[in-house]
C-alpha cells in the first residue's frame, strides 16, 4: 500500500469504521471507449476555438441589410405587377436609352449656388407655398363662418317662425309693439341702409333710381 493510502486508510478507520468498511468503487457507468477518444475530441475543440472565422463580411453589412432587402422586394413587386399586365413589356430592359452630356450633373450642382444668387430660378420653398395656401384657406373658412353666423339668427328665427301658431306670432308681435311700429322701424332701417346705398351712386344714377321708385329728392343727397 502506498504511503498516502496507508495514512488515509488509518485516518478513516479512526474516524468511522462504518465508512472505512464501505466499497471504494464508483458505481457510475461511462460510455464504451470514452477515454480512448477523449483526447482527440478535446484537441478538435481546441483547434476549432483557435481558428479565426473563415469569412469576412463588409462593414455595416447587417445595418444596411433590411433596407437592401426591402428595395429588392419592391423591385420584385413592380416586376411582378408589370408581368401580370404585360408579359411582353416585362421582358424588355427597363434602362433609359437617352444620353446625358458628360459631367452634366456635376456641373449642375456647381451652378446651383450661382443661380440662386442671380435670382434666376429663385427658389420658393415648398414650405412658403404651403404657408400661403394655408393662410388663404383659413381666410375662406373664416369668411364662411362669419357669413354663417350672420345668417344663423335669420334662419333660426325663420325655423322658429315656421313652427309657431298664428296666435303665438300675434302675441309675439304685440309684445314687440304694433305692426305699424315694426313696419316703421323696418322702413327706418331700410332708409338708413338706403342712405348708405345712395352715397355710392352718382347724381345721374340717383335721379334714375328716384324716377323708377316714384320719389324725388330734388337731386340732392342726404348726408
Amino acid at each position, binding site marked *: 500500500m*502506498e504511503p*498516502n*493510502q496507508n*495514512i*488515509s486508510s488509518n485516518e*478513516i478507520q479512526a*474516524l*468511522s469504521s*462504518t*465508512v472505512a468498511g*464501505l*466499497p*471504494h*468503487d*464508483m*458505481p*457510475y*457507468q*461511462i*460510455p464504451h471507449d*470514452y*477515454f480512448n477518444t*477523449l*483526447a*482527440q*475530441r*478535446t*484537441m478538435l*475543440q*481546441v483547434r476549432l*476555438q483557435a481558428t479565426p472565422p473563415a469569412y469576412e463580411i463588409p462593414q455595416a453589412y447587417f445595418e444596411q441589410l433590411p433596407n437592401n432587402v426591402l428595395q429588392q422586394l419592391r423591385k420584385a413587386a413592380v416586376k411582378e405587377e408589370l408581368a401580370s399586365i404585360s408579359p411582353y413589356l416585362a421582358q424588355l430592359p427597363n434602362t433609359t436609352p437617352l444620353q446625358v452630356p458628360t459631367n452634366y450633373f456635376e456641373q449642375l450642382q456647381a451652378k446651383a449656388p450661382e443661380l440662386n444668387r442671380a435670382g434666376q430660378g429663385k427658389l420658393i420653398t415648398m414650405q412658403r407655398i404651403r404657408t400661403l395656401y394655408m393662410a388663404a384657406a383659413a381666410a375662406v373658412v373664416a369668411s364662411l363662418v362669419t357669413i354663417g353666423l350672420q345668417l344663423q339668427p335669420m334662419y333660426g328665427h325663420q325655423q322658429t317662425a315656421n313652427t309657431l301658431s298664428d296666435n303665438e306670432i300675434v302675441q309675439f308681435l304685440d309684445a314687440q309693439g304694433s305692426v305699424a311700429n315694426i313696419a316703421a322701424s323696418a322702413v327706418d332701417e331700410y332708409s338708413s341702409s338706403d342712405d348708405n346705398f345712395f352715397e355710392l351712386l352718382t347724381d345721374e344714377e340717383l335721379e334714375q333710381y328716384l324716377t323708377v321708385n316714384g320719389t324725388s329728392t330734388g337731386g340732392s343727397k342726404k348726408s
Partner: protein
Amino acid sequence: MTDKELLQAFAQPHSREKAFTAIMQKYQEKMYWHIRRMVVNHDDANDVLQNAFIKAWRGLDNFREDSQLYTWLYRIATNETLTFLEREKKHTHGQFDGDDESLTNRVKAQEGFDVQRLEWKLQLAIQQLPEKQRLVFNLRYYDEMPYEEMSRVLETSEGALKASYHHAVKKIESFMLQH
C-alpha cells in the same frame, strides 16, 4: 514521459499538440471522476472536463511549475466544476445545493442504480454534503490526496480541510446507519 518532459515538448511548436494529447491521456480519468462525482451526469462531466482541458491548453504556457502539474489541472477542473454547479443553481433556482433532492434524484436516475447496494447508498450520502465538503471528502476518500496538496487545489488551509473531512465522514456515517 514525465511531467517535465511533457511540458518541455509542449513548449516546442512542432510537438505542442502531441505533448498536450499525452498530458490529457495521462490525467483524463482522474480529472473525469473528480468532476463526475460532483456533477453526477456523464454528459455534464464531459462538458466540464473538455472546458477544463481547453483552459489548460490556453494557460499551460504560463504554468510556473511551483506545484505539480496534476495539482494545477485539478484546480482548473475544480473551478470549472464549481462554475458549472453555480450556473445550474441559477437555472434551477437553487436546487443544486447539497441539501436539496435534485442531486439525489440525479444519482437515482443513473443507469444501474440500486439503493440496496452500499456503493449507491454512499453516493446518496455524499450528495447530502455541502459543495465544498463534498469536494474535500471526494479528494481525500477517493483520490487519497494529501492535505498539503489539497490546500493548493482548493486554496484552503490544511487545518480547515481536515476539519471539513472529519465532519463529512461523520455525516456520511450517520446517513448510512439511518438508511
